[in-house]
C-alpha cells in the first residue's frame, strides 16, 4: 500500500466558542492533486495553519508521510512545501537570495542549493531573472518563484493556498499546468485550496469544505455522480448553498 502523503483524521478546531473545523477527515496520496474547494470563511486557512503546524490541533490527527505533525513535527515539516496565499518573499532581496535563504533553512549546502535553484527556476522559465530584486517582478513571476522555493527541498506534499488569487488568466493557467505536470512527472502530492472552479482538472480529487465541515470528497467523477451535478461549478453551488466567495 502506498504511504499517504497527508492523512487528516477527525480534525476539529475552534477559536474560542467559534468552531472553524468540525470533524474533518481526508487523505492525499502521492501523484494526486486534491483541490480543497470552499468559499471564504469555509475553514481552508485554518486547515492550512494546522497542517503547517502554525497552530496545534486539539482534536483529531494530522500526519504527513506517516509523521504526526504534533509529535514528529520536524520530520513532518521537512516533507512539506508551502505556497501561502500572501506572497512571503522578501522584496528587497534578489530571487536567488530569497531561494538561498529558504535552502539554508532546510539545511541544504550552498552548492547543492545553487544547483537546485537553477533546476527549479529553469523549469519555470525564471532562471534569467534570478539576479533581479523580487520587488521588480510582477505577481505571476513572484508566484513562480514561490513555487520554485517550495520545491527546493524536494517535498513529498505541496500545499498551495489560493496561489492564483489576483493573477491574470495566462499566469493562472501557467501555474495550473505547471503544478499538474509536477503531480504526473514527479509523483508529487498536492493539496490546492481555491474557490476558482476552472482550476480543477478532470482527474483531480475534490474536497468541498463549507462552514468547517466536509460536504463531499473523492475523485471529481465520483463527486459529480454522488451530488447529481453536471460540473464542479454546480457541485460548489449545491454544497455551499450558492455562497459567493
Amino acid at each position: 500500500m502506498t504511504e499517504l502523503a497527508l492523512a487528516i483524521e477527525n480534525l476539529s478546531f475552534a477559536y474560542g466558542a467559534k468552531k472553524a473545523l468540525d470533524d474533518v477527515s481526508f487523505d492525499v496520496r502521492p501523484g494526486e492533486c486534491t483541490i480543497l474547494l470552499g468559499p471564504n470563511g469555509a475553514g481552508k486557512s485554518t486547515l492550512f495553519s494546522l497542517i503547517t503546524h502554525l497552530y496545534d490541533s486539539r482534536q483529531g490527527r494530522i500526519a504527513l508521510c506517516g509523521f504526526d505533525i504534533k509529535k514528529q513535527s520536524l520530520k513532518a515539516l521537512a516533507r512539506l512545501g508551502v505556497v501561502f496565499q500572501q506572497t512571503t518573499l522578501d522584496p528587497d532581496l534578489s530571487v536567488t537570495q530569497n531561494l538561498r535563504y529558504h535552502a539554508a533553512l532546510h539545511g541544504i549546502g550552498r552548492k547543492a542549493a545553487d544547483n537546485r535553484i537553477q533546476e527549479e527556476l529553469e523549469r519555470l522559465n525564471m532562471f534569467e531573472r534570478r539576479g533581479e530584486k523580487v520587488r521588480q517582478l510582477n505577481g505571476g513571476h513572484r508566484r513562480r518563484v514561490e513555487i520554485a522555493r517550495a520545491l527546493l527541498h524536494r517535498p513529498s506534499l505541496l500545499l498551495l493556498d489560493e496561489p492564483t488569487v489576483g493573477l491574470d488568466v495566462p499566469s493562472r493557467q501557467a501555474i495550473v499546468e505547471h503544478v499538474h505536470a509536477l503531480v504526473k512527472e514527479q509523483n508529487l502530492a498536492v493539496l490546492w485550496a481555491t474557490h476558482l472552479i476552472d482550476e480543477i482538472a478532470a482527474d483531480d480529487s475534490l474536497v468541498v469544505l463549507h462552514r468547517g465541515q466536509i460536504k463531499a470528497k473523492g475523485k471529481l467523477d465520483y463527486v459529480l455522480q454522488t451530488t447529481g451535478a453536471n460540473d464542479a461549478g454546480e457541485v460548489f453551488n449545491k454544497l455551499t448553498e450558492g455562497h459567493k466567495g
Partner: protein
Amino acid sequence: MRLLHYWRAMMGIVGRELLRFLHQRERFISALVRPLVWLFVFAAGFRAALGVAISPPYETYILYEVYITPGLIGMILLFNGMQSSLSMVYDREMGSMRMLMVCPLPRWFLLGSKLIAGTAVGVLQSYAFLGIAWAYDIQAPLMGYVWILPALVLVGMMLGALGLLLSSLIRQLENFAGVMNFVIFPLFFMSTALYPLWKIKESSEILHTLAHYNPFSQAVELIRFALYEQFNLDALIFTALSFFVFMSAAIFGYNPSKGMMVRKGGGAP
C-alpha cells in the same frame, strides 16, 4: 548532519538580516543619528546643569558626554531590539514569518537565530557610534573596546528578547506605536542612561527603586563598566536573568498550542 542543518539555518537567518541591513542604508543612518543628536545637542546643552561626581567605574570627574555614552549605546541596542520586533510583526503581517515557522527546526532555535541576527546588527551600530564618539574625544581605554563586546552581545540579546516577546503579543503593526511609548520611554528615562542612581535618589525614592530594578539600567551599567575594563557582576546576573525571562516568555508566545497567537484567534504567525 543535524548540527550542520542548524548551522546552515542560523547562517541563513543572520545573513538575511545583514543583507537587509545593508540594503536599508537609511535604517543604519537613522540608528546613528538618534544617539548622536543626544550626544552633540542634549549632552552639550546639559553639561553645565548636570555635573557628575566621581563614581565607579570612573576614577575622576567626567564630562556629562562621557557619562551618557554607555546609555546612548544602550539606546541603540534598545531601538534595534524594538526595530527587530517591529520587523517581526511586519513579517508576520506580510507572511514571511510563516515561512520561517514552517521550516523543520524547533521554534526556540528559530527565534534564537532571529535574535542573534538582530543583535549582530545592533553590535555593528554600537561600534560605529563608538567610532564617532572617539573622534568627538570621548575615548575609553583601548581594551575597553574589546571588553565591551560580550556586554553588547548580552544586552543586545536581552533587549531583542524583549522585542520578540512584544512581537508575540502584538497582532497588528498599528498597535506597535502605542507599545513603543509604553516600553521604550519608561525603560530609557527611568534608567541610569541619562543620570546616575544617586542623583535620582535625591529627587524620589520610588523612582530610584524603579530605576534600580529596571533591566535597562542594569544593561547600561554592564556596558559602562565593560567600557572601562571593569566587571559588574550584579549587572551581569540581572541582565542575564532578564534575558532568560524575556526569551522564555517569547518562546511561550510563539508556541503553536499555548501562545497568544491561538488565543487571539486567527492571527497566524
